[in-house]
């Protein structure tokens, strides 16, 4: 009896926690991704990288959101990676779940990261930050 009650209570807590935290974009600096490791060209101003698997329902909705955002903001590319075929990259970037979304600036620095399906407004806000990284990077390139 107690085990059943405790398990369902834990389920409610975990479920509500997930509803709150899932898909939050968090600041995650440090790592860098190049077009070579990605296997696709970076966006001119920013790149949205999505890790997906076939075994992933929210990946479809995430793909829709990121495609819309990439179409809306010029210079932004959406790259979707099949996690299973790139386990090397999955390990390197410590991807635990799908979908995981990385927001890269123009040079491939990881600016933000979300595990779970992100909200569209949050993605747009994160892109704003990624793009504002741009001038300093471009300045030392030129």
């Amino acid at each position, binding site marked *: *009896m107690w085990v059943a009650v405790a398990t*369902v209570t834990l389920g409610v807590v975990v479920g509500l926690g997930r509803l709150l935290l899932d898909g939050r974009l968090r600041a995650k600096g440090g790592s860098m991704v190049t077009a070579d490791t990605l296997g696709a060209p970076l966006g001119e101003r920013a790149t949205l990288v999505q890790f997906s698997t076939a075994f992933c329902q929210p990946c479809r909705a995430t793909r829709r959101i990121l495609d819309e955002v990439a179409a809306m903001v010029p210079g932004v590319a959406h790259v979707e990676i099949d996690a299973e075929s790139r386990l090397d990259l999955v390990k390197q970037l410590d991807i635990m779940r799908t979908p995981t979304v990385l927001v890269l600036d123009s040079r491939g620095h990881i600016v933000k990261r979300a595990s779970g399906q992100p909200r569209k407004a949050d993605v747009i806000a994160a892109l704003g930050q990624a793009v504002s990284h741009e001038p300093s990077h471009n300045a030392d390139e030129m």
Partner: protein
Amino acid sequence: MRADPRALRFGAAITTVILALVLILGSAWLLALQTLAFALGAFWRQPYGLLFKALVTSSPEETEDPRPPRFAQAVGLVFAVVGLVGFLTGITPLAFTATAAALLAAFLNAAFGFCLGCEMYLMIRRLNPGRVS
């Protein structure tokens, strides 16, 4: 064949009730029945899904890839078998822990639409990259 998400959710709700009853009654027989349901779901057709189809004739608004829920049924099967082993060998904590883990996953699916079993897929692939599905 594509999966009907409503049938999956319905199945998760029934699974939740049955697993909760297993814990409340301490019934190995009921867990054996659920184990059979998981096995059918993993390797053939989910019996609760078939029941849903018999009751509801309208077609779903959108359908899902059937592989994730099938994989999740297989994960459920593993926990149910471990639970059964616990009951049969008299190791009650093992029986209750395994059943509670399966109940947690079924409840999250029924109440919130989260599929824990599906999400474990990438973790398992990370640990065991050699196996091709």
